[in-house]
């Protein structure tokens, strides 16, 4: 059930017309995926090469999908904006990847991983998807090991594990502090093998600028060659978007600089539903902002919270003292105090908000009082500096390089930063969007993490989607499409979309204003961080909803893009992305405004009990799915109700 909020956002009475059936198989949760796999249609092996598939993105999700679909025999084209598929943002993941292997014999199981993920997501994810994710998690580790991913090992040669934010079992696999890099290099190697074999055509330094929809189906994409500026059309029987998250809408985030919302937002404008855009994750352990030249924020893996203890001075007057001068009884280990059973391992949203509270209370440390300590003193005393170096050496080095301080001697200073986006394109159980033939994988979709993602679960989801799910569900779709039905890339639908893309680029070039693209992006980021960040109120969101359109209008009047349209032009690339962020930001704030509850990363100050988030299952136990209704009309909000049949809806407590 929906309620129209005081603002004038139209809310559809029923989701049925826009949001299709999610195609969740019947039967007990443990059997749904097996049943679905068995019931899926197959494409005859000899016919597979007649099907063209476009995969946009070469991260864990897209790279794994492109490689796997090519192994199966499909004719695949893969696109990424970096100069090589190996550089997708997945490369930056540090901490690890979860899997329900129970190698440590500590009580883990598929069901427990499922349970933890549903609960961690604050009951805003679809049970069936999450269970499938937990099931295939074990296959992911097998596949990665077989491809030569150098996971950490015990002396006996078995795989090592560690426990990771929010989990009480050790189910996280890792490769030093470079797990994402090693998993992505595994994916890249599989993809390269298919490129070498001529089964995947790879388009690097190529940006997708639109999806082409014809007769209600996705039939291709429009791209810009970032080196030559050339715009071209690519046709396919199906399009898979795996373009990552939109955290950079905040300008400052832990994401790589190129991460953007363009592909999913363009799909939204072509009719794909956008789900829960306001569900963004703020990560508790990042290096604090040091000045206005700051271009990104660096994450310190939360695996550090296994051994580091988080504290602030008990007295505000101690905040300027050297930490060594503050006696134990004058330190407030606030996570251990507030959440005795999870302590420093409390989930991200909780740990982030707690840090903000301490700083708002005047007890923050470092420049501007926006930081808390993450202290390894006790771990070093207990295990020795060498052991700590072995586990976290590269992270400590990274910290020292950025801050000029040695964390073996002085506690690290950390502060929350935007990190991950749970929202994304709505997909059904088959990972298909509301547009038939358009699929969405990885961080770009909304499906598995609800309102908060647990640590080490994004890598798992990306690889689950790319290696083990899309290979079945895409086949099922293609089996119902004639291979002869390929829309020609010279058909009117393509010509129209190409023209629109070119016109938009021309419009951007024609502004010839005075302000740099970055200056607009920074300003947008500040608005969102203040108004739609860790704590949101009706007032702050309404403020954002007046500020954003104004900023957008200024952007289109005063942005300065030098250079040409038909050549390598990084300002133009950025301008296109920022123009999309400027529209998307409004959707995010609208979503946050209507969701009058607190859940996971979405914290509405009005909805709390003694500082803890207060969910409203009566009114908001659903996915919000937004429909684009036109450039001049407001988007419409539809819903997909969520049913919890296996994990009982309960207030999340980590006390």
């Amino acid at each position, binding site marked *: 059930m929906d309620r129209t909020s005081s603002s004038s956002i139209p809310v559809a009475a029923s989701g049925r017309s826009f949001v299709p059936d999610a195609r969740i198989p019947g039967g007990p949760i443990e059997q749904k995926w097996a049943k679905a796999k068995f019931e899926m249609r197959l494409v005859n092996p000899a016919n597979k090469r007649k099907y063209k598939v476009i995969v946009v993105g070469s991260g864990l999700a897209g790279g794994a999908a492109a490689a796997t679909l090519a192994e199966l025999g499909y004719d695949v084209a893969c696109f990424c904006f970096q100069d090589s598929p190996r550089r997708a943002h997945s490369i930056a993941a540090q901490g690890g990847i979860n899997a329900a*292997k129970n190698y440590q014999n500590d009580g883990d199981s598929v069901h427990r991983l499922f349970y933890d993920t549903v609960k961690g997501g604050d009951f805003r994810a679809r049970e069936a998807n999450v269970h499938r994710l937990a099931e295939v998690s074990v296959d992911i580790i097998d596949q990665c090991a077989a491809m030569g991913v150098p996971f950490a090992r015990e002396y006996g040669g078995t795989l090592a594990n560690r426990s990771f934010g929010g989990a009480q079992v050790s189910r996280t696999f890792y490769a030093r502090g470079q797990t994402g890099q090693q998993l992505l290099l595994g994916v890249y190697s599989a993809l390269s093998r298919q490129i070498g074999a001529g089964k995947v055509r790879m388009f690097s330094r190529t940006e997708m600028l639109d999806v082409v929809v014809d007769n209600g189906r996705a039939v291709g994409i429009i791209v810009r060659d970032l080196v030559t500026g050339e715009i071209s059309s690519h046709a396919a029987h199906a399009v898979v978007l795996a373009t990552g998250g939109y955290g950079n809408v905040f300008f400052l985030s832990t994401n790589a600089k190129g991460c953007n919302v363009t592909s999913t937002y363009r799909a939204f404008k072509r009719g794909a539903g956008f789900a829960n855009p306001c569900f963004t994750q703020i990560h508790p352990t990042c290096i604090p902002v040091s000045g206005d030249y700051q271009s990104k924020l660096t994450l310190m893996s939360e695996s550090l919270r296994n051994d580091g203890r988080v504290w602030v001075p008990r007295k505000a007057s101690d905040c300027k003292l050297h930490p060594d001068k503050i006696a134990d009884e004058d330190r407030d280990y606030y996570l251990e105090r507030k959440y005795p059973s999870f302590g420093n391992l409390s989930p991200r949203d909780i740990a982030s908000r707690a840090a903000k509270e301490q700083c708002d209370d005047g007890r923050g440390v*470092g420049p501007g009082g926006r930081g808390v300590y993450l202290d390894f003193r006790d771990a070093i005393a207990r295990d020795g500096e060498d052991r700590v170096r072995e586990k976290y050496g590269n992270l400590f080095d990274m910290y020292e390089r950025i801050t*000029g301080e040695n964390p073996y001697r002085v506690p690290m200073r950390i502060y929350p930063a935007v990190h991950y986006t749970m929202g994304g394109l709505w997909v059904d159980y088959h990972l298909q969007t509301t547009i038939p033939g358009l699929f969405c994988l990885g961080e770009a979709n909304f499906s598995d993490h609800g309102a908060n993602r647990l640590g080490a679960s994004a890598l798992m989801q990306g690889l689950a989607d790319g290696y083990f799910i899309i290979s079945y569900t895409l086949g099922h779709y293609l089996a119902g499409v004639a291979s002869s039905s390929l829309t020609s890339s010279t058909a009117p639908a393509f010509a129209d979309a190409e023209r629109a893309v070119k016109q938009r680029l021309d419009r951007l070039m024609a502004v010839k204003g005075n302000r740099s693209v970055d200056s607009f992006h920074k300003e947008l980021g500040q608005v969102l961080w203040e108004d739609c960040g860790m704590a949101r109120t009706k007032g702050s969101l309404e403020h954002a909803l007046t500020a954003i359109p104004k900023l957008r209008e200024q952007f289109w009047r005063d942005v300065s893009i030098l250079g040409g349209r038909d050549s390598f032009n990084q300002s133009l690339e950025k301008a296109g992305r920022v123009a999309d962020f400027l529209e998307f930001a409004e959707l995010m704030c609208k979503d946050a405004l209507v969701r009058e509850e607190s859940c996971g990363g979405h914290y509405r100050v009005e909805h709390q009990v003694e500082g803890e988030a207060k969910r409203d299952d009566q009114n908001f136990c659903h996915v919000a799915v937004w429909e684009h209704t036109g450039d001049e009309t407001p988007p419409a909000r539809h819903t997909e109700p969520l049913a919890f049949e296996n994990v009982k809806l309960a207030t999340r407590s980590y006390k």
Partner: protein
Amino acid sequence: MSDSHEELDLTLHVWRQPDRAAPGKMVAYKVTGVSTHASFLEMLDILNEQLVARGEEPVAFDHDCREGICGMCSLMINGRPHGGMRATTTCQLHMRFFKNGDEIWIEPWRAHAFPVIKDLCVDRTAFDKVISIGGFVSANCGSAPDANDLLVPKEAADRAMDAAACIGCGACVAACPNGSAMLFVAAKLSHLHHLPQGQPERLARTGAMVSAMDEAGFGACSNHYECEAACPKDISRDVIAELNRDYARSAFVHRERANKADGSG
């Protein structure tokens, strides 16, 4: 990072080249008010903001993660790849290592196999080509045994990981007087060859990747080891010795195979 920081005024000499075909040249710029806490790329951001404000086209440079892992950033800084600080990429280099009034020379990677696309950006697809010839284990998705069925001694996993840390930035090639990609190729081989998973294709992979490296336009290795000094991930020259050992054997195996194939072996 203390509350205190200085601001630097610098003179930059930057390589400007409009596209692949056009000639390039060094252009001098003043950049002012750079905080010592800023990173090198943030310093270039500041320069670009100042250029845009003056109506001049900003300098193109590659970057993405800005935390030393994606391998997208590059730059010869004062003649040294990534600025020459040990185990540090350009994006991790911070301005506290420069002094007020410094002159800094900034150029793209210079190597036959890495043509300049624009200003400081080069084309490194030659690396991707070499990997696509053999930088993988041929294991289709779905064919894997349980991960713990194949034990890997911790030392082997650690050695593999040391080599696998390569970010494919190309500093080794830029540093090499011959423009050789030996450290890059050897690191990939060392990663796979310390693991049991890499053994079945070991010699074939070595032979194929070395040939692919030559074909992609990289020069030959004549043991200068400038690559090791330039590597932001501290990859050891030892991997090159490992490669050479396997390469000798691969040439032999290759001959044997060729002989068998034409029936004479």
